[in-house]
């Protein structure tokens, strides 16, 4: 029997029981919609984060003390005191790392900020305001940034995020006022506009003070939590990374790279790491969604078994007039695949619509420019998987049908 004929026969079979076919298709639709939506939304999240990381500048290099974490849960030796001022100086020396444009240290200060009895748990960072401004493309809407001079003099000045300002000062002015961090007064010199979550930072909840001040007066340490560096351009990054590693190893007297007490990450590394995490998450969610597709597949199998039993007489007639086992098998298999493929196509359309709506809602709720990504892979996967589900769950009923003895099938009441 030709494919066209088999297809026609399969459609006729499905049309004979419209309601039943529709319900079976619904089971597949739900599964495919779930998969598409999950993949699309997590793809959108990944694109968002990667886009933000990218916007920090492709020539960004981060040097951290300790050993590089092997995975998301490996926090071993992240805190270490191996990066100090002499390391920074050595890196800034053109003889050591010729293509390094600039480098700046950063420290994180745990704790809260307060003003006249109002307290807020902000992310306090000892860093450079100019770097912050450049990396996140943000500039105070009130006041200014603190300067290199402020860092040199270890001045007690701070640039605060919009939420910090709102929580502490409400509607009144913040610039010029003194906030308290760990019992030390810091003069607010700038208030950042609201920008929300960017990459790993919530810029609205940030308080940036000079790293020198944070080290000296807030933490009392002589080491850095991180050194951020900029390469001259994207092309020289591998060379710069190699130079940094060589310089620091020399300085720390390390011969075996496996014993490094620091690690270097480029923007590509960060993007890769984020991609791995969101990839795992999206895979996990998609597998959960896939379960509903399997349930849909069981529905297909169930209905096909009923259909085969009901149409035993038809199978007998077809065999009597010369249908081979293979013809009967193909007929019922194609019916199952057509069912699931129709479900797959409807599911893709619905799923894409739903993820588009989802991206709008998420964008509004999180006040982000949430990108909608039409899940091409998800769509192909959904269609492929649903057709595959049809094959897997259709094969048993179809085999049952094809194995029927013609005479017994004809006599079936």
């Amino acid at each position: 029997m030709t494919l066209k004929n088999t297809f026609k026969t399969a459609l006729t079979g499905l049309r004979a029981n419209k309601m039943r076919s529709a319900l079976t298709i619904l089971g597949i639709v739900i599964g495919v919609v779930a998969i598409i939506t999950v993949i699309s939304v997590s793809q959108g999240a990944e694109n968002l984060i990667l886009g933000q990381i990218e916007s920090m500048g492709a020539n960004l290099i981060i040097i951290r003390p300790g050993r590089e974490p092997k995975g998301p849960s490996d926090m071993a030796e992240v805190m270490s005191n191996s990066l100090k001022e002499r390391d920074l100086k050595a890196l800034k020396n053109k003889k050591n790392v010729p293509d390094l444009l600039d480098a700046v240290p950063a420290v994180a200060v745990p704790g809260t900020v307060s003003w006249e009895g109002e307290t807020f748990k902000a992310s306090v960072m000892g860093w450079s305001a100019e770097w912050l401004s450049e990396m996140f493309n943000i500039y105070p809407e009130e006041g200014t940034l603190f300067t290199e001079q402020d860092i040199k003099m270890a001045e007690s000045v701070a640039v605060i995020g919009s939420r910090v300002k709102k929580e502490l000062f409400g509607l009144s002015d913040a610039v010029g006022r003194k906030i308290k961090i760990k019992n030390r007064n810091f003069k607010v010199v700038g208030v950042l506009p609201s920008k929300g979550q960017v990459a790993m930072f919530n810029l609205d909840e940030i308080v940036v003070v000079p790293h020198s001040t944070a080290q000296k007066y807030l933490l009392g340490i002589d080491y850095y939590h991180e050194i951020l560096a900029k390469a001259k351009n994207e092309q020289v990054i591998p060379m710069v990374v190699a130079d940094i590693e060589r310089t620091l190893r020399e300085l720390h007297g390390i011969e075996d790279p496996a014993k490094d007490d620091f690690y270097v990450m480029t923007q590509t590394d960060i993007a890769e790491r984020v991609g791995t995490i969101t990839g795992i998450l999206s895979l996990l969610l998609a597998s959960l969604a896939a379960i509903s597709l399997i349930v849909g597949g069981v529905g297909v199998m169930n209905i096909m078994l009923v259909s085969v039993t009901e149409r035993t007489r038809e199978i007998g007639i077809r065999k009597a007039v010369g249908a081979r086992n293979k013809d009967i098998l193909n007929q019922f298999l194609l019916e199952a695949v057509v069912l699931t493929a129709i479900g797959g196509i409807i599911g893709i359309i619905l799923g894409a619509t739903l993820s588009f709506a989802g991206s709008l809602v998420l964008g509004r709720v999180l006040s982000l420019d949430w990108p909608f990504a039409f899940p091409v892979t998800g769509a192909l996967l959904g269609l492929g998987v649903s057709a595959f589900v049809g094959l897997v769950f259709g094969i048993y009923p179809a085999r049952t049908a094809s194995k029927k003895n013609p005479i017994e099938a004809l006599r079936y009441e």
Partner: protein
Amino acid sequence: MAIIELTDLEKIYKDEDVETPALRGVSFSMKGGEFVAVMGPSGSGKSTLLHVMGFLDRPTNGEYYFEGKKIDEFSDDELARTRNKKMGFVFQSFYLLPRTTVLENVKLPLSYSGIKGSLQQELAEKAIEAVGLTDRINHLPSQLSGGEKQRVAIARAIVNRPSLIFADEPTGNLDSKSGQVIMEILQKLNKQGHTIILVTHETYTAQCAERIIKMRDGKIEEDIKVAQQHLAEKDHFVK
């Protein structure tokens, strides 16, 4: 050459531990172009014999040569192909596909024979014309009378121009007038060269054949040549 040759054919139905013999050593042969009626009371094995001869079932023991080839040498696919190309079936209960037009029902065997669509249409129309149902071509089986349904079944049986036609009680569910029309068509087909095997328990229907095989308890009791063949066209059946 004999088209069908049976030697000591046995068919035993096994149902768990119970063995029910339906055929207990049947031997006979028939030539192409013959019109044979198989008669016998119910349970005599006449339907089983037709099913085995029509490749719908395999014999348990004995030898069956079809056109000189032993049935054991046919694979299941070859049995299906032979049924499709060389055999046509007419059953007591018509066995038409419901919700499928007369035309599509008649085309059914052609869809399994690899014949092109345009030729399928032509052959189906010709077969429907041969049974006089051209005006019913787009009707559904549910819109037809019993006699018309059986004529559709005959059209389906002859559409692929088979050499053999098996008719299993074709008039059993019909009134005598419709039954007569069916027998007329079968006789006409026989005259055109089709070999026909008819299973019936009605003597009058059997008298339309040239040869009658009487069965009892799974064996052939009598194999007689009909002295005076009824011509369905002229005679009137009395049930």
